[in-house]
């Protein structure tokens, strides 16, 4: 086995002297995920001296274990325990060199035209038409080997979704992913052990590094030094062995805050900066996702094969009640925790039959009803409860999934409620779905796609970030991460983030 770790030069906290570091650069990028990595590469390519600060650790792929619980501990924000204030929604984000791209499921979609049109009419983003963004989509698709799954990359679980949808006339197709010669381990969420997922760890970050960018891991940006409408330096803390903290200061002419949709607004709030609109932290959305299992008479082994193999639903109409169903790998931990199999003998029986379960997750376009802020106790708060309108969309998605499962031959469907709820036949679908009501701690909700807390828009009184990615209130500060989405997009967001970051980098280059 070729176990040579992929080459990435990273300054880790233990490499930093106790007295700390004082760096001078053209650009400082906070965060090394989807948006930060693209910005670092694009600006390095333009000749800028770039420093990237990443709060999470550096783990080369040879240290990935394909053991999801271990990955949660080592690669995820709050060790996988980040939740809303109610406690009934897990909000997953990567926290490592490469950010969420290292642990994501690799599904790829362009931003639906309908969403871009909404951004144009409601938020004044005339510049982000499908035509204007097309070259950026093409570029990242090329750079990240994005392609539709080949037939061998669609496992039995995926084929069942395609077959069931075809019988009902619901649009469906094999998934599109950023992978190269996928080894089909099914462990995307535990990070790709063999570098086949084209995450930032094996693409844009090594490319930026090759062009001279300096990348620091375990280094959390905390405060900004400000002079008028400019941030002149970023102060960070590198946390080394035994928790020893070392100061890192980076002076730069341009600041890119790409810390993701939870941490970016918190950084600005903490520094009381760029919030003349009062919108920082507001408009949080997250694509609340639910899993649905369908029991078949024979084995399916949904956990064998690619993590996402196929999808069904009305991808083009997110704002008109569309939903997306993605056939997804589910090991025992997620099988047991995403739907309720019951208690005692019921649960044991359910798990013994888990290899017979068809498995998928649903995605919806949710409204921007949430808020991210620092509480009085200094702790971050993610306020988000399911809006009734979004609950209706979830119901539609659950109904659609159940119909597809029965059409594909399922004999029973398990719903993602906190008390076991099953649908025993296709005739029961409507009555069971109708009986579901919105409420706290009633559903097993997960967000893989937080977004929207630094809204982009043309009107500085209603948005934080201008159409070119620059903060309305600051002259040298850009935000390219998922926090700038003016509304939720329903589809998996990484390609939108990559394309927007590429676009913003070009805006910066054009400004000179």
């Amino acid at each position, binding site marked *: *086995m*070729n176990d*040579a*770790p*992929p*080459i*990435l030069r990273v300054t880790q906290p233990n490499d930093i002297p106790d007295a700390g570091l004082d760096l001078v650069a053209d650009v400082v990028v906070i965060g090394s995920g989807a948006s930060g990595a693209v910005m670092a590469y694009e600006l390095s390519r333009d000749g800028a001296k770039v420093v990237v600060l990443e709060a999470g650790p550096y783990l080369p792929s*040879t*240290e990935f*274990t*394909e*053991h999801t*619980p*271990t990955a949660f*501990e080592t690669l*995820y924000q709050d*060790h*996988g*325990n980040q*939740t809303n*204030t*109610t*406690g009934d929604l*897990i909000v997953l984000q990567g926290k490592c060199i490469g950010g969420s791209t290292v642990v994501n499921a690799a599904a790829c979609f362009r931003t639906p035209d309908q969403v871009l049109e909404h951004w144009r009419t409601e938020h004044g983003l005339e510049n982000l038409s499908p035509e204007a963004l097309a*070259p*950026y989509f093409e570029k990242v698709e*090329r*750079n990240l080997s994005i392609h539709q799954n080949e037939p061998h990359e669609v496992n039995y679980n995926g084929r069942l979704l395609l077959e069931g949808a075809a019988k009902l006339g619901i649009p469906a197709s094999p998934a599109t992913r950023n992978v*190269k010669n996928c080894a089909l*381990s*099914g*462990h995307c*969420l535990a990070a790709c*052990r*063999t*570098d086949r997922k084209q995450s930032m760890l094996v*693409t844009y970050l*090594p*490319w930026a590094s*090759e062009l001279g960018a300096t990348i620091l891991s375990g280094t959390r940006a905390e405060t900004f030094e400000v002079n008028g409408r400019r941030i002149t330096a970023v102060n960070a803390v590198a946390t080394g062995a035994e*928790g020893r903290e070392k100061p890192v200061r980076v002076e730069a002419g341009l600041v890119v805050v790409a810390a993701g949709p939870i941490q970016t607004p918190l950084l600005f709030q903490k520094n009381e900066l760029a919030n003349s609109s009062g919108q920082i932290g507001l408009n949080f959305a997250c694509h609340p996702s639910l899993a649905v299992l369908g029991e078949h008479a024979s*084995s399916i*082994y949904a*956990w064998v094969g690619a993590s996402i193999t196929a999808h069904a639903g009305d991808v083009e109409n997110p704002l008109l009640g569309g939903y997306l169903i993605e056939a997804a790998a589910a*090991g*025992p*931990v997620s099988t047991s*925790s995403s739907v*309720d199999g019951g*208690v*005692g*003998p019921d649960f*044991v029986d359910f798990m*013994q039959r888990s290899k017979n379960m068809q498995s998928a997750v649903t995605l919806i376009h949710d409204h921007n009803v949430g808020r991210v802020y620092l509480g009085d*106790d200094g*702790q971050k708060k993610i306020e988000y409860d399911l809006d009734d309108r979004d609950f209706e969309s979830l119901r539609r998605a659950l109904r659609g999934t159940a119909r597809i499962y029965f059409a594909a031959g399922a004999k029973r469907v398990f719903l993602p409620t*906190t008390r076991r709820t099953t649908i025993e036949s296709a005739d029961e679908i409507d009555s069971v779905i109708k009986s579901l009501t919105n409420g*706290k*701690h009633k559903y*097993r909700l997960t967000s893989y796609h937080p977004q929207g807390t630094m809204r982009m828009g043309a009107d500085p009184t209603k948005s934080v970030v201008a159409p070119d990615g620059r903060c309305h209130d600051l002259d040298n500060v850009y935000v390219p991460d998922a926090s700038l989405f003016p509304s939720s997009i329903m589809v998996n967001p990484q390609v939108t983030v990559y394309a927007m970051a590429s676009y913003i980098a070009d805006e910066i280059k054009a400004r000179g």
Partner: protein
Amino acid sequence: MKHRLHRRTFTKLSLLSGGALVVPAIGAAPVRASNGFVLSADDRMLIETFAEAMLPTEGTSLKPQSEVPIADNVAHALALLDDPVLEQVRLGFKLFDYGAFLVGFHFKRFVNLSIEQRVDYIHRWEDGIATQRGIVDLLKKLTYLGYWKDLEAARAIGYLGPVSVAGGVPNLGNAPMPPSDPKP
């Protein structure tokens, strides 16, 4: 029988769906418990008696529940939580355990109920107010994680676990830098 608890400011139960709540089993750097957390005897008893009710593995093809260190795994997982969250989790444990005392189970705590009574009690909390639903769901998820993190337990249902190293799948390394991107 009604069994309502007053709604409390029990706001943040960490519902850990995905799985940090597990011992790092396979060669990862151990995560240190920053808060020095140790599971109390009461809490350990609660986890163990809850798991007995949730997972009656005897006579099935599953790995015997008693052979998986569920409570230790849960303890490790709880040690990763921030202190304020951990405090609420422990409060939740207490409410659940002593709640049985209050709602007519002959003045017994949950840990002292028979298996059938425990299952009945779990169902009552599933149908309770949001706080009760949150607490019982947390206990379930802790149990799932404490049990299924064990690879032998997972393999008993046909799950493969890690495959790439065992299968000799080579690393691809970094992708080559794109030649020179044409300007869009």
